[in-house]
C-alpha cells in the first residue's frame, strides 16, 4: 500500500473526530484550551502507535477468540506508561487531564485501529497508520481547543489577544458540544460541498 496515503488518511479523509466521530469523550472533555487538546492528542498518538506496533507483531500468536481482551491489555499497558510518565514530567497537564488519561484505554479509536488495521497488516504499515490516525486526532483536538480558547478566553496557547473576559460558555461544558457541532458542519460544508 502507498505509505504516504496510509499516513495522511487520518488527517482528512478518515479523520477520527470529524469524519468517523470516534473518541468523543476526550474530544469534548479535554479541549477547554488548545494546550490541553494538544497534550491529550500527543498522549493518544503515543498509545495508538505503540499499541499498533505491538499488536501487529503478536497478531499471529493470538488466538482469534481471545484477541479483544489481549488487545485491551496491550493498550492498557501503554496507557499506564503514559500516565506515569506524564505524572512525573508534566504534573500540571496531568492534573488538568485527570481521569481522561487512564480513559484512553476505552477510547474507541485505539481499539478500533487495533482490530481494523493492526491485526491485519505488517508492522511498518501499522506504525504509519497509528501515527497518522493519532496525529489526525491530535490535530482535531488542537483545532477544537483553539476555537474554544479563542472564543472563551480571547487567547491562544495562553497568549491573550484581547484584554477582556471572553464568552465564558465556550470554556464550560455546553460550549464543547456547540463548538464541535458547528466545526463538523463547517467541515461537511468544505469537504462534501452540501
Amino acid at each position: 500500500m502507498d505509505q504516504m496515503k496510509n499516513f495522511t488518511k487520518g488527517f482528512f479523509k478518515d479523520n477520527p473526530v470529524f469524519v468517523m466521530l470516534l473518541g468523543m469523550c476526550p474530544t469534548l472533555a479535554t479541549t477547554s484550551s488548545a494546550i490541553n487538546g494538544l497534550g491529550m492528542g500527543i498522549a493518544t498518538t503515543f498509545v495508538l502507535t505503540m499499541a499498533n506496533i505491538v499488536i501487529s507483531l503478536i497478531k499471529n500468536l493470538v488466538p482469534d477468540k481471545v484477541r479483544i481482551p489481549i488487545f485491551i491489555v496491550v493498550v492498557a499497558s501503554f496507557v499506564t506508561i503514559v500516565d506515569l510518565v506524564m505524572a512525573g514530567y508534566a504534573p500540571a497537564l496531568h492534573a488538568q487531564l485527570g481521569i481522561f488519561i487512564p480513559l484512553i484505554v476505552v477510547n474507541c479509536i485505539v481499539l478500533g485501529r487495533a482490530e481494523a488495521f493492526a491485526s491485519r497488516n505488517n508492522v511498518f504499515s501499522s506504525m504509519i497508520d497509528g501515527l497518522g490516525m493519532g496525529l489526525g486526532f491530535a490535530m482535531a483536538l488542537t483545532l477544537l481547543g483553539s476555537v474554544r480558547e479563542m472564543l472563551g478566553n480571547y487567547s491562544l496557547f495562553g497568549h491573550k489577544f484581547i484584554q477582556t473576559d471572553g464568552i465564558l460558555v465556550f470554556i464550560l461544558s455546553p460550549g464543547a458540544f456547540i463548538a464541535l457541532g458547528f466545526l463538523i458542519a463547517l467541515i461537511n460544508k468544505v469537504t462534501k460541498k452540501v
Partner: protein
Amino acid sequence: MEYIIMIISAVLVSNIVLANFLGICPFLGVSGKITTASGMAGAVLFVMAVASIVTWMIQQYILTPFGLGFLQTIAFILVIAALVQVVEIILKKVSPPLYQALGVFLPLITTNCAILGVALLITQKEYNLIEGTIYAIGNALGFALALIIFAGIREHLELMEVPKGMRGMPIALVVAGILSLAFMGFANLV
C-alpha cells in the same frame, strides 16, 4: 440524607454526560429512539452498580495492600470486560426477558467510558463501599436521564427542517450543548 444529596448531585448538578463528558459514545450512538435509549440506560445502571462494587473490592483488598496501584487501569478494564461477559451469561440463564431487553447493549458497555470512569472516580474520591455504590447508582441514573431526554428531543428533531449541512451529528451536538446549558441551571442546587 447525605446519600440523597449525593444522588441529586450526581443526577442533576454534575451530570455524568452533560457536565463530565463520560459515556458520550452511547449518548450520541443509541439515542435515536426512546425505547433503545431506555434499554441502554437499564443495562448501564446494572453494570455500573456491579462493576463499582467489584472494582472497589479489588482496589481495597488486592491493589492497595500489595502496593500494585500502578496496575489499576489494567486490572479495572479487565475486570469490567470479564464482568460484562459474566452478567450476560447469568442474565441469559436466570432471566430471559431481562436478557431480551438488555442483551444487545451488554457487549457495547465494555467500551463505555462511563463505567471505567466512575470506577476510577470512586477510588480517587476515596469513598467507602456504600458511598461508592450510591455514587455509581446516582451517576447511572444521571446517564439514564440525559440519554432519555436526548432521545426524546432527537425523535422530534427528525421531523424538523434542518439546514442541509447541519443534519445528523452537527445538529445533535448543538442540541446536546443546549441541554447541557439547561443542566447548568442546577449548579447551585446542592
